[in-house]
């Protein structure tokens, strides 16, 4: 099983690398596209969360080590410290997810306030923002 995995991993290494990093970067770009193009504020916030997801995927992807297990010393894995994946990006992503949630919540509340005041959530129709 292990050897098969290693064989496939080295054989298709290029494809897997493109798959992981490509997906993460594509998610980031899709999010940025939504932020720049979309008029509706809710869609802009959705773009923000998509971009967040891409960055988290990139972080965890960089931390992966071939043949690595989860960084948990469960029974039977007490001496497996040398074949665990990098735990630091995972801890950082845990922090980043919570901060992302906080940002989304506050942004949504601001959108609700704006919608109540201007009766629309489209930024090009909110006239008082122009100067």
């Amino acid at each position, binding site marked *: 099983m292990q050897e098969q995995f290693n064989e496939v*991993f080295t054989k298709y*290494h290029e494809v*897997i*690398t*493109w798959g*992981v*990093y*490509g997906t*993460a*970067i*594509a998610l*980031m*770009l899709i999010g*940025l*596209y939504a932020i*720049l*193009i979309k008029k509706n504020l809710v869609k802009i916030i959705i773009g923000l969360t998509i971009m967040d997801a891409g960055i988290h995927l*990139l972080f965890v*992807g*960089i931390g*992966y*080590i*071939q043949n690595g297990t*989860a*960084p*948990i*010393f*469960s*029974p039977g894995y*007490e001496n497996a*410290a*040398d074949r*665990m994946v*990098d*735990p*630091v990006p*995972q*801890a950082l992503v*845990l*922090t980043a*997810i*919570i*901060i992302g*949630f*906080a*940002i989304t*919540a*506050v942004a*949504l*509340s*601001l959108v*609700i*306030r704006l919608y*109540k005041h201007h*009766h629309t959530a489209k930024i090009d129709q909110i006239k008082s923002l122009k100067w």
Partner: protein
Amino acid sequence: MKKAFVIILLAVLGFFLTKTFMDIPFGENRIGEVSSNETAAGYYLNNTPAKTKVANVVTAIVVNYRGLDTLGEVTVLFLASTGLASILYRRKREEEDAERLSLPSSRIMRTGVRVLFPAIVLLGIYVFIHGHLTPGGGFQGGTIVATGFLLMLISYKGFNTDHNRMVWIESLAGLSFVGIGIWGLISGNTFLENIPETGILNSLISGGLIPIIYIVVGFKVAVELTGILDILLNIKPKK
């Protein structure tokens, strides 16, 4: 016109991002020799089971090595929930005829949620009590508990959270986190020092203060997320 400009910008950005990150070989071991303590990750992996007696290294990093950072994170979450409440503040008079935005739910939904709610809360509590042994922890468990409350909030119009009790739980949780940190200072160590390093690796009572801090964080996150959901769901509909 604007769209073409944005697409060109994104293409350039995508090209350079891809070019940069393709130089990092995927799956390569960048930690180095774990026992040499050369990198931060190697140090954590080498010292966590012996020094903190915690099985989950990510928990050890989040709560112990970067404990101050987690305190800041919990503060950010608290500020988000407070900010949300103050932005969406309603006066007493408006509050009286405020009602849920959600549509009335079906009987299947209500019955299903009534069965599922205790199980979901129990799972969440399990996840944050075992945060030092299994994947999971205070933030994840708290989110699961809040999911259960979300289901209750969207399926029962009469279901209301007790704000006073929630404020009390939140304040006590936050205070005990800071109190545990100050205990470390009083005992002559650093802030949030993990003092009682007792227990056997992989048993429920192990890791000293780490499980206690994560349980406190779990309560705090659960209450804050439930509060945010409650505020967002109780907005008065536009007449």
